[in-house]
């Protein structure tokens, strides 16, 4: 293993740490203010569930949370330019990956935010198992794609 010092600069490290604090704070804030877990896949999945089951139930706080999250880059742009993002995955990869993330997070009842941040912060063994499972499979997937197949889907 070698460290990618070109990507892992002091600036990147400090941004990562402060960004992490903000993510943790947002999770604690939603629990303290609304009594809810900030799990993105759960919140989004619940909205999908209401639509599929044709329930006439308002989306409530979930919609406000999603609007805040989707609006974050827009608010960011009022003050500064968005950091550049690089996406090497092609359309087919995005579709296959997106469907797998949608299905998988619903079966697992959580993703990086719900299990990763909230669950681990609450010392949940269930979340620890989930995090090890998705981290493990993500690392193996990247290894297979980059080093064995040498392709970006």
């Amino acid at each position, binding site marked *: 293993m070698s460290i990618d010092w070109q990507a892992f600069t002091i600036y990147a490290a400090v941004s990562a740490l402060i960004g992490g604090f903000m993510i943790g704070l947002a999770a604690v804030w*939603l629990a303290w203010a609304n009594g809810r877990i900030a799990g993105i896949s759960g919140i989004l999945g619940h909205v999908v569930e209401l639509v599929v089951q044709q329930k006439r139930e308002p989306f409530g706080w979930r919609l406000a949370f999603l609007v805040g999250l989707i609006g974050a880059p827009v608010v960011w742009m009022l003050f500064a330019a968005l950091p550049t993002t690089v996406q090497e995955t092609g359309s087919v990869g995005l579709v296959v990956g997106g469907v797998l993330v949608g299905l998988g997070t619903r079966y697992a009842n959580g993703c990086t935010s719900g299990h990763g941040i909230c669950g681990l912060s609450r010392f949940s063994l269930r979340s620890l198992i989930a995090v090890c499972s998705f981290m493990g499979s993500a690392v193996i997937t990247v290894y297979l794609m980059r080093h064995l197949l040498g392709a970006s889907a």
Partner: protein
Amino acid sequence: MQWVTAGLAGLLLGMGLILSGMANPAKVIGFLDVAGPWDPSLGLVMGGGLVVGSIGFALLKKQPKTLTGEPLNLPTSRKIDLRLVLGSVLFGIGWGITGICPGPGLVLLGAGIPEGIIYIASLLAGMTLYSLIEKLRHSA
């Protein structure tokens, strides 16, 4: 009030994802690619989130009353089963292929980046598929 506090939580989370680099798929893949030149940044995101999260949730335990008066609705399930593990494995494969997990996907969508739009449309399709499968299973 409930809407305002939830909206602020979403906004703060989104800002954190942008600042931290989690919303940059190439950076996420650089973290997951332990065999290549490795970028440890996202370990710090996780670490930072967990420090604040563990202190915050510990304090919340002693303060069961929420700001908006809503009941504290924390998960109680302790079940460790195949559903949890296989679901997480599927999620990890999708995360590895794209470098995007659900939160950053929504941020990329909000930024109007085409990849974010394709990703979220597919993610919603996957979630719809789940709801339909479960609906069929329960009615069968």
